[in-house]
C-alpha cells in the first residue's frame, strides 16, 4: 500500500461504502426493539381485524350501511379520510374508517422507531462506541432500514391475510366487498395490505433522510412529522377539489391503490422507488458527514470543543477560545429563572409547532370555502352541513387536539430534565421542587394558549379573506380558547404520572394521547361505551360554533386538570429524585 493512499487528506471526501456486520447489527436492532415491533404489529393489524369484524355485524342491516355511505360523502369525511370509490360494502367501509388513520399511525410510528435507533443513539453517544468497532459505516442505517421495511411488509401481509380470512364464501363476498368472487375479494385484501406496507416504507424512506439531515432526534421527528403533515394536507386539498393534486402526495399514491375498486398495483412501485431514492440520499449524506454532526443545521456537535471554565492556571486559556465562538458565554437574566430556562429548552419545539399551527389553519381556512361550495351543490351528509358545523366539529377540534399534543409534549420536558440528570443540579439550588415544577408548567400553559390563539387568528383570517367574512374571526378565536381546559387535562395526566411513576410517565402520557386519537376516530367501532367517549376531554368540550356554548364541561375539565396536577405535585414532593 502506498503511503499517499493511507493518509487522510482533506480532499478525500467520502468514506468507503461498508455494511460490515450488517447481520449482527440487524439482530441487535431486533433485540433492542422487539417489544415495540410486536406492539405495532398487534395494534395496526388487530385494529383492522376488529373494525372489519365489527362492521360485519353492524351493517347486517342495509339501512345502517346506507347511513354510513351518506356520511362518507360528506365534505368533512372527504377531508379527513379521502375519496372512497367503493363505500357500499363492509370492506369499503373499513377502508374508509381505518386506512388513513392506520396508515398514518404506521408511517409515523416507523419514523419514530428509525429515529430512536439512528439519531437517538448518536444523540446519546451510544453510536460512538458501536462505530469504534468494525461495524460498517452504513450498517446502523442499513439495519434500521431492513428491520423497519420488514415490519412494514409484515404488517402489510398480515393485514392482507386477516382481510382474506373474512372472504371464504362466494355467497357473502358481494355484501362484504362488492365483488363477485372470492379471488377478487382476496385481491382487494392484498391491495389493501400492500397499501399499508407502502405507507410503512414511506416512513422508512422519510425516516432515513431526516435522521441524516437533522442535528438531533427531536428535530428529526419534528421535521419527519412535518413532511407527513404536508403529504396529508396536499392529499386533503386534492380530494376536496377532486383535482389531480392528490397525485402529488406520496400518501395519495398509496391511497389510490384503491382496493376492491381500481386495484392499482403500480403506485406501490412508485412508493418503493421513492423510498429507495430517499434511503440512497441518506446513505450518501452519511458517508460524507461526521458522526453526530448534521449537514443542514450545523450547531450540534458532539461535546463541542468550546472553552469550558477551567480552574487555576488554565483559566488564561479560556478567554481566547471563548472569543472565537459565537455561543453565549453567560446567561441572560431571563434564562437564570426556572421559567426562562423552560422557554429556552423548548425553543425548538415552540418554533416547530408554531410554524405548523400557522400553516395548517391558513390552508384549512381556504378549504372551508371549497366545502361550502360543495355544500351548496349537494345537500347530503349528516355531519357538518354548515360552515359553523365544519369549523366546530372538524377543523377546530382537529387543530385543538394538535395543540393538546403540544401541551403534553411540553409537559414531558420535566421528565426529560430528570432523565438527563440535570434536574438534580437545579433542585440543589434555592428553588423548591413544587416551585420548579409550577414555573415549568406555567410555560406549558402559556405556550398552549399562544398556540390556540395562533390557530384561531390564522384560521379566522384565512377563512375571512377567502369568504370575505371577517366577522367569523372572533368566533373562531373564542372557539379555540374553549379547548384550554382539555389541553390542560392532557398535560396534567403527565404531571400525575411524573409525581408517582416517573419512569413510565412519558410512555403513559403518549399512550393516553394516542388512545384519545383512536377513540375520537374509531371509538364507536371499538365498542367503547358512548359515555366513555363523551367524557374524554376533547369530546366533552362544547364544539362551538357548531353547538351553543356551555360552561359546565369546561369547569369540570379545569377541576380535573387541577386535581391531577396537585396530586402529581404531591407525589413529586414525596419521591426520590432522580428516579
Amino acid at each position: 500500500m502506498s503511503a499517499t493512499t493511507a493518509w487522510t487528506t482533506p480532499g478525500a471526501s467520502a468514506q468507503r461504502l461498508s455494511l460490515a456486520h450488517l447481520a449482527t447489527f440487524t439482530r441487535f436492532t431486533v433485540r433492542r426493539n422487539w417489544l415495540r415491533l410486536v406492539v405495532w404489529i398487534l395494534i395496526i393489524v388487530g385494529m383492522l381485524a376488529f373494525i372489519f369484524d365489527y362492521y360485519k355485524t353492524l351493517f347486517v342491516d342495509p339501512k345502517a350501511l346506507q347511513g354510513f355511505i351518506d356520511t362518507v360523502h360528506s365534505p368533512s369525511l372527504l377531508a379527513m379520510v379521502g375519496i372512497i370509490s367503493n363505500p357500499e360494502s363492509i370492506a369499503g367501509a373499513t377502508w374508509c374508517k381505518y386506512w388513513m388513520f392506520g396508515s398514518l399511525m404506521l408511517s409515523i410510528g416507523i419514523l419514530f422507531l428509525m429515529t430512536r435507533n439512528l439519531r437517538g443513539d448518536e444523540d446519546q453517544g451510544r453510536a460512538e462506541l458501536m462505530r469504534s468497532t468494525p461495524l460498517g459505516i452504513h450498517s446502523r442505517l442499513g439495519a434500521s432500514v431492513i428491520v423497519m421495511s420488514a415490519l412494514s411488509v409484515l404488517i402489510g401481509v398480515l393485514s392482507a391475510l386477516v382481510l382474506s380470512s373474512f372472504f371464504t364464501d362466494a355467497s357473502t363476498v358481494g355484501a362484504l366487498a362488492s365483488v363477485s368472487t372470492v379471488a377478487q375479494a382476496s385481491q382487494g385484501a392484498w391491495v389493501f395490505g400492500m397499501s399499508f406496507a407502502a405507507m410503512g416504507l414511506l416512513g422508512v424512506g422519510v425516516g432515513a433522510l431526516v435522521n441524516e439531515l437533522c442535528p438531533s432526534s427531536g428535530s428529526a421527528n419534528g421535521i419527519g412529522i412535518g413532511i407527513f403533515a404536508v403529504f396529508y394536507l396536499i392529499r386533503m386539498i386534492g380530494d376536496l377539489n377532486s383535482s389531480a393534486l392528490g397525485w402529488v402526495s406520496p400518501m395519495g399514491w398509496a391511497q389510490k391503490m384503491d382496493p376492491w375498486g381500481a386495484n392499482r398495483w403500480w403506485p406501490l412501485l412508485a412508493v418503493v422507488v421513492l423510498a429507495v431514492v430517499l434511503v440512497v440520499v441518506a446513505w450518501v449524506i452519511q458517508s460524507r458527514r461526521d458522526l453526530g454532526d448534521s449537514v443542514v443545521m450545523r450547531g450540534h456537535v458532539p461535546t463541542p470543543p468550546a472553552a469550558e471554565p477551567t480552574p487555576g492556571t488554565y483559566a488564561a486559556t479560556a478567554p481566547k477560545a471563548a472569543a472565537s465562538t459565537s455561543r453565549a458565554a453567560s446567561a441572560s437574566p431571563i434564562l437564570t429563572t426556572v421559567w426562562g430556562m423552560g422557554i429556552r429548552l423548548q425553543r425548538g419545539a415552540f418554533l416547530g409547532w408554531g410554524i405548523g399551527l400557522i400553516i395548517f389553519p391558513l390552508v384549512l381556512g381556504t378549504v372551508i370555502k371549497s366545502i361550502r361550495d360543495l355544500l351548496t351543490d349537494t345537500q347530503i351528509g349528516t355531519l357538518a352541513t354548515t360552515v359553523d358545523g365544519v369549523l366546530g366539529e372538524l377543523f377546530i377540534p382537529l387543530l385543538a387536539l394538535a395543540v393538546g399534543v403540544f401541551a403534553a409534549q411540553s409537559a414531558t420536558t420535566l421528565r426529560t430534565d430528570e432523565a438527563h440528570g440535570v434536574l438534580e443540579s437545579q433542585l440543589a439550588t434555592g428553588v423548591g421542587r413544587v416551585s420548579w415544577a409550577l414555573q415549568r408548567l406555567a410555560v406549558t400553559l402559556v405556550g398552549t394558549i399562544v398556540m390556540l390563539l395562533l390557530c384561531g387568528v390564522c384560521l379566522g383570517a384565512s377563512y375571512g379573506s377567502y369568504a370575505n367574512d371577517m366577522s367569523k374571526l372572533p368566533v373562531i378565536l373564542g372557539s379555540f380558547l374553549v379547548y384550554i381546559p382539555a389541553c390542560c387535562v392532557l398535560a396534567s395526566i403527565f404531571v400525575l404520572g411524573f409525581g408517582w411513576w416517573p419512569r413510565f410517565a412519558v410512555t403513559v402520557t403518549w399512550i393516553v394521547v394516542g388512545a384519545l386519537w383512536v377513540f375520537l376516530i374509531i371509538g364507536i367501532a371499538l365498542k367503547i361505551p358512548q359515555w366513555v367517549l363523551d367524557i374524554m376531554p376533547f369530546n366533552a368540550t362544547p364544539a362551538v360554533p357548531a353547538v351553543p356554548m356551555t360552561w359546565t364541561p369546561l369547569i369540570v375539565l379545569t377541576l380535573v386538570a387541577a386535581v391531577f396536577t396537585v396530586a402529581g405535585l404531591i407525589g413529586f414532593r414525596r419521591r426520590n429524585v432522580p428516579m
Partner: protein
Amino acid sequence: MPDNAIEVVGLVKRYGSVTALDGLDLSVATGQVTGFLGPNGAGKTTTIRILLGLLKADAGRAQVLGLNPWTDAVALHRRLVYVPGDVALWPNLTGGQIIDVLGRLSGGIEKSRKQEMLERFQLDPTKKTRTYSKGNRQKVALVAALASRAELLLLDEPTSGLDPLMEGQFQECIKQVKAEGRSVLLSSHIFAEVESLADTICIIREGHTIEQGTLASMRHLNRTQVRTDLDSGADTLRNLDGVHDLAVDGSHVTFSVELSALPSVLDRLSRLNPRSLAANPPSLEEIFLSYYHTDVAKDQGSQK
C-alpha cells in the same frame, strides 16, 4: 508493520467558526504507550475521534496502523479498540450483553478473558446498565476493550470514574498490553497514571502540540527542585549558573536548578555542610504546569 501505530501531522479540524485542532502533531510508536495530555477543550477527544474515522479532518494527515482512518474506518476498527471518556450505554440491556455485542462486532470475545476482566474490575454483568454508576459504565467499555487482543488501544480518559483500587487494576492491564507488544494512546488527567505507564508523552494546548517526547527528555528541559537546610552561606548559591528561584526561610532553603548545572551546584552545596538535602526531578504535573505557565506568560506578553 509501520514503526508508528499512529502518525499525525498538521491535523486541522474546525466546527463552524471554532477551530478545535490547529496543526496537531502526534505519533505513537508500535508497542509503546503514549500519554496524551492537555487541558479541557485542548482537542484530545476530537483527535481521537478523527483517529477513529468518526470525524473528518479539514486539513493535515493522519495514519493509524498504516491505514487512512476516514476511508478505511472499518478495516481499521478490526484492529483497534476504543474506550470513550463518557460511556453511554443502552439502558435496557445488561452490562454483560453490551460487552458481548461489542466483542462480537470486534470479531469475537474470549469467554475466559471476559470473565477475567469482569473479576478484575468487579463488574456485575447481570445488571441493566441504567442502574450503573459512571464508574461502572466505564468498566463495561474497559472490560470489552481489555478482553480483546487488538493491536491498538485508544483510551480517552478511561479511568476518570474509577476508584483507586480499580485504577491499580487498570495499570496492571495496560502493563500487560505493553508486554504483549501492543500500542496504546492514553488520554488522561491523572498524572500518576501517565507517569507510570507512558513511554512517551504528547502535550497539547488549543489544538496544537506543545511538546512530544519521553518523560526523561522532558525532565531534561526542566529544572530539578532542591530543598536543603543550611546554617549559613545560602546567598553564595544565588549567583551560580543554572540556579533559579532561591528562597531562604531561616535555615530552610529551596531553589530550582537546571539539570546541566546540577553536578556543579551540588558540589558547591556539599561544601556548605547541609543538614538535610532533597533533590527531586520535576514531576509530570510540574512539567505540565510549567508548559502552561510559559505559554500563558507568552500570550500575555504578546497581548501587550
